[in-house]
């Protein structure tokens, strides 16, 4: 695990963006924000909404905090970060309720809880508050993108196996017996474990061949 956690400072914009998508993926490598990951990834729609909500809060907060990085005093930086994050979470919460009230009901308390998602606060402290807005936005896009992709994969997998459907449309053949456990909290752990295992295996293969420096 140690090699994956090393903060490799990306030099180019593309590296900056890719770091969050794969090498420092917030779910697969950093294991951040696990509570919503496990709780709302029971269907593809829930997972996608939650992922997009988190990613947009991350992006908006990163832009604001990065722009204010020279103004915010060091003593109250965490309080300021939380204020900014909480504002965007509240706004996102209201927008989701206006656009898709059914999904809003299904996600319940988890949207307000984005405030406490350590992925966002962590990126603000470790990255956005030390870099110019452009770099902070690229980092947020990469991390947010990685979060959405992982959550969507988990949600699709769990809905497919647990309900035989994808985005509410039945796709499995008639005789398919749904694995109800996949929709329950336990199924979240199984699916996440499988996903992390697959990701570790995939990222190890080139290293053995000496393709990675």
């Amino acid at each position, binding site marked *: 695990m140690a090699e994956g956690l090393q903060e490799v400072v990306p030099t180019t914009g593309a590296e900056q963006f890719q770091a969050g998508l794969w090498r420092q993926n917030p779910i697969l490598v950093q294991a951040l924000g696990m509570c919503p990951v496990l*709780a709302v990834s029971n269907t593809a729609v829930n997972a996608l909404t939650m992922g997009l909500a988190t990613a947009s809060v991350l992006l908006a907060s990163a832009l604001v905090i990065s722009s*204010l990085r020279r*103004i*915010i*005093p*060091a*003593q*109250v930086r965490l*309080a*300021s970060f939380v*204020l*900014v994050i*909480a*504002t965007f979470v*509240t*706004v996102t919460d*209201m*927008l989701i*309720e*206006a656009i898709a*009230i*059914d999904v809003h*009901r299904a996600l*319940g*308390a*988890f949207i*307000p809880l984005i405030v406490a998602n350590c992925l966002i606060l962590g990126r603000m402290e470790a990255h956005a508050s030390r870099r110019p807005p452009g770099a902070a936005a690229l980092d947020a896009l990469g991390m947010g993108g990685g979060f959405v992709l992982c959550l969507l994969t988990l949600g699709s997998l769990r809905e497919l196996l647990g309900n035989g459907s994808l985005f509410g449309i039945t796709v499995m053949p008639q005789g398919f017996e749904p694995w109800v456990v996949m929709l329950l*909290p336990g199924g979240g752990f199984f699916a996440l474990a499988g996903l992390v295992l697959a990701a570790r295996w995939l990222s190890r293969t080139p290293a053995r061949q000496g393709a990675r420096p």
Partner: protein
Amino acid sequence: MTVLAGARTSSERRVYTVLVGIALVAGLGIAAVHELTRPRVAEQRLILLSRAVFDVLPTAADYYALRERPDGTFEVLPDSTDTGLFLGVDEAGDPVGIAITATGMGYQDRIALIYGLDPERRHLLGLRVLESRETPGLGARIVDDPRFLAAFEALELKFDDRGRVRALQIAANARPEAGEIDGITGATVSVRAVARIVSSSLERWLPAFDGAYPELAEEADG
């Protein structure tokens, strides 16, 4: 702290100015978005509400809103007004029951729910939770646990010696004909909250509809 008291720390006044400034902008932003989304949210909530009314009054084909007049009679209004009281009617226009919204404290925040009541046969017809912020995975199961919700579909109401409605009881192996509902493991507090909210709402509305319901039936007919 003496080490920190160098160039990196800022004056107290600056700290407050920045924090208050951020909070002010944040507050303004939230208020603006709230104003912008309010009409659309209200519209969406009305759609959800009408779906909930039909859920708790399964035999209803249409419904009207009711408002209580000071003299205890009820005024029949179009269904687009949210008075929290609704009279369900079947295709022939005969009343099938009353849907009543009620709110109360849950485990960590307000729970808003709606239930269907048949004031003549004195039993409940169904229950849906409209709003809640109970613990996800535990208390939140009051929203979608099918067994729990099914318990309210033919729940007999019980009365004490003086004719007052008795509070709903939570029991293992509950018998709906005895006014009992099954609990949910892990959601004890939330289930009790639901029972309490429904019971106190029944205390308020059942006597009010005892006399008014037959009249309402005629009014809805005509």
